[in-house]
């Protein structure tokens, strides 16, 4: 509850910086709204760029929430209970940013309501609508799932605060009864069971946006679902690790967030990253062995061509290195370096963003004659940075308003 009570001095410049970046983000978007999508570096060949990468990346981040919560509730790994809500708040914030990113990508965002109006006629056909349905469902369910168990903590807050905070907590607690925890616990368990397949379907439908297009080399393929889900879970868990480490340091919650959590998360991350590297290897090998022209061209671009520097630096520094470190850490008993784990997790998060970029852009530019190259314009980069800043801003504000760690459960191994 500490962040709710006290505000450190660094808080305000930090929020101000984030707010400023967010303002730049809004400014860049107004430029785009006034002039059109031509302000981006996109063209008729490279139709999707930074915005779609953002979209997929944020949806990937959102998988952390249910993954950890499911581990806690269904598999009774109560060790991770303290970070469960952190992860769910991350889910909420990143899904909001994902929705924002996709609206930013639209040529006519004022017509976004047509997605709902024509829903019935198009839902059987368009993977984009399946994705939107799944994400919307996931968002609603996750929010509910975040909110319901939080009610008792909000009640505690309501009791402990006065003034405007008390009013705020009262508004969020309609019809709260003291004994509802048991019912909610059961409900939450069932919800966790429901949300887990929804989470799988969310990122499967995201992968279907790309993998059902038979003409796109290295998009089209049957293994896109597991490929995307592995990346999503990896990036989500890694970002939860980073957030947990930061929060732990900031509020001195060393006892609430013991190193065991980080060790466990690190182990899981190493396995997931290993699985992801394995899937990448399989994909590249398939493309190169006797691949058709399109796959060969794109694979060439990834490994030896214009995207080679990016690809190899990301893979080695961002994926292989953290994987090795975390594996070593997993097998070595003794102290866990939280700094090390969080730094390498940050590397994984950054690598995952660039990996999404490498998945999306070379297929578009290299699938045929690269008549037009793609360089993200300043608008896109500002919006990219701004969406991360906005995510951090949302997270920070929520940190200040709701208890980020569940209070009732005493931390136990």
């Amino acid at each position, binding site marked *: 509850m500490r962040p709710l009570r006290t505000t450190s*001095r*660094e808080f305000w*410049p930090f929020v101000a910086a984030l707010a*400023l970046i967010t303002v730049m983000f809004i400014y860049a978007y107004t430029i785009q709204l006034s002039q059109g999508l031509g302000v981006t570096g996109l063209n008729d060949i490279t139709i999707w760029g930074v915005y779609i990468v953002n979209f997929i990346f944020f949806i990937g981040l959102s998988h952390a929430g249910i993954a950890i919560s499911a581990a806690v509730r269904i598999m009774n790994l109560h060790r991770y209970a303290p970070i469960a809500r952190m992860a769910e708040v991350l889910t909420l914030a990143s899904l909001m940013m994902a929705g924002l990113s996709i609206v930013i990508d639209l040529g006519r965002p004022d017509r976004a309501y047509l997605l709902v109006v024509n829903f019935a006629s198009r839902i059987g056909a368009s993977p984009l609508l399946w994705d939107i349905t799944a994400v919307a469902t996931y968002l609603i369910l996750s929010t509910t799932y975040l909110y319901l168990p939080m009610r008792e903590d909000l009640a505690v807050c309501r009791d402990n605060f006065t003034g405007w905070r008390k009013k705020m907590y009262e508004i969020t607690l309609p019809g709260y009864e003291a004994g509802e925890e048991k019912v909610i616990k059961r409900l939450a368990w069932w919800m966790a069971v429901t949300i887990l397949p929804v989470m799988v379907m969310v990122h499967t439908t995201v992968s279907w946006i790309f993998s059902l297009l038979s003409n796109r080399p290295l998009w089209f393929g049957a293994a896109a679902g597991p490929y995307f889900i592995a990346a999503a879970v990896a990036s989500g868990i890694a970002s939860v690790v980073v957030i947990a480490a930061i929060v732990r340091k900031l509020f001195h919650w060393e006892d609430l967030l013991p190193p065991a959590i980080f060790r466990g998360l690190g182990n899981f991350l190493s396995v997931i990253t290993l699985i992801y590297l394995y899937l990448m290897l399989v994909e590249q090998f398939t493309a190169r062995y006797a691949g058709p022209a399109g796959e060969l061209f794109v694979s060439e671009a990834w490994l030896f061509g214009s995207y080679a520097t990016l690809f190899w630096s990301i893979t080695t520094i961002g994926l292989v290195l953290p994987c090795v470190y975390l594996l070593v850490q997993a097998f070595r008993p003794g102290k866990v370096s939280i700094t090390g784990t969080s730094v390498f997790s940050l590397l994984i998060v950054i690598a995952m963003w660039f990996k999404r970029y490498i998945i999306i852009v070379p297929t578009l530019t290299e699938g045929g004659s690269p008549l037009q190259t793609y360089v993200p314009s300043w608008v896109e980069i500002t919006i990219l940075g701004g969406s991360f800043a906005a995510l951090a801003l949302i997270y920070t504000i929520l940190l200040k308003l709701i208890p980020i760690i569940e209070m009732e459960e005493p931390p136990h191994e």
Partner: protein
Amino acid sequence: MSFKKGKLIIFLLFISMSVAVVLGDPEGAEDYKGTGYCLSCHVEPMVDWIPSPHSKAFSDPEFQEEYLKLGSPESCLSCHTTGFDEEDGTFVYEGVTCEECHGPGDTMNRDTSPELCANCHSGPYPTYEEWKDSGPSHLSATCTLCHDQHTAELLAETPTEMCSSCHGTHLEDVEETKHGEVGVECAECHMYVTPPDFEEGIPGSTGHDFVMTSEELDCQTCHDRTLSKHDVLGVSEFACLSCHGEIHSLELELINKDVLPMNDSVLLCAQCHNERYTSWEQGTHGKPEDPEAQCVECHDPHNPVIANIPTLPVIPERRPPAGPSIPLTTAFIVIVGILGLAIVLLRWR
């Protein structure tokens, strides 16, 4: 005087006259009297003859030029002079004078047969041979039927009129054709003249076979028209006749002998270019603003290929995205830097 003196005088006279008879009248220059001799009685023929080509046969500058160029061969002189002696290569008079045809002096030969003309008009200028081969119908037309003996001109105003004296009805049809309207003479094609090649020994043609067998005579002799691409239709005039079916009328003729007017020639092109015709019918070829336009409105039928179609300009690249506003970016970076510094300083205090 006695009787004996009278007999001696008569005997001497008889002897001298016999000697004169025996030694006299050789075929030599003494017997040729010259045209002046004939003129004393035959004025009208002389008036006809003087401007004729016969009288100028030697003096004609063209003949002189050719004669000298060929090195003054004697073979020319046998026709171009009067009284040419083959043995010693001498001749009596220049040109074809009265005595060449009518005989020297008082011979006054009256032969008007073609064989007389054939003495000269044969060989390198094979008029006689051609006429002989010209078929039974023209054999009854001897030289003098068309030509005046002394002027050597035709016995009509124009060659066409001369032909029409027998071929009258045919000519009426031709007059209405293109060639007839323009005034092309029958003889221009049907009596096409080519000069002989004396060096190679190839005789020329004087067209008196009335048949167009000369390889040198084709449409391009008169029409300076080169066929490009459509020359594959045939050799020389056959290419022209593939479309211009009838040689006098030059009308456009289809293979089934239907005649097309000049301003509606599409079906003629369609005979060979049937795929293009289908395209034109369906609107995928031709002038967009005029779907009924004839082929020839764009394609010259003698040079139908349309090349040099200009290449139109490229569509330029899309306008690239504009850069950021520099002052705004600088201000932003500065402010964020200050805030970051503040955070770090506050944290490490």
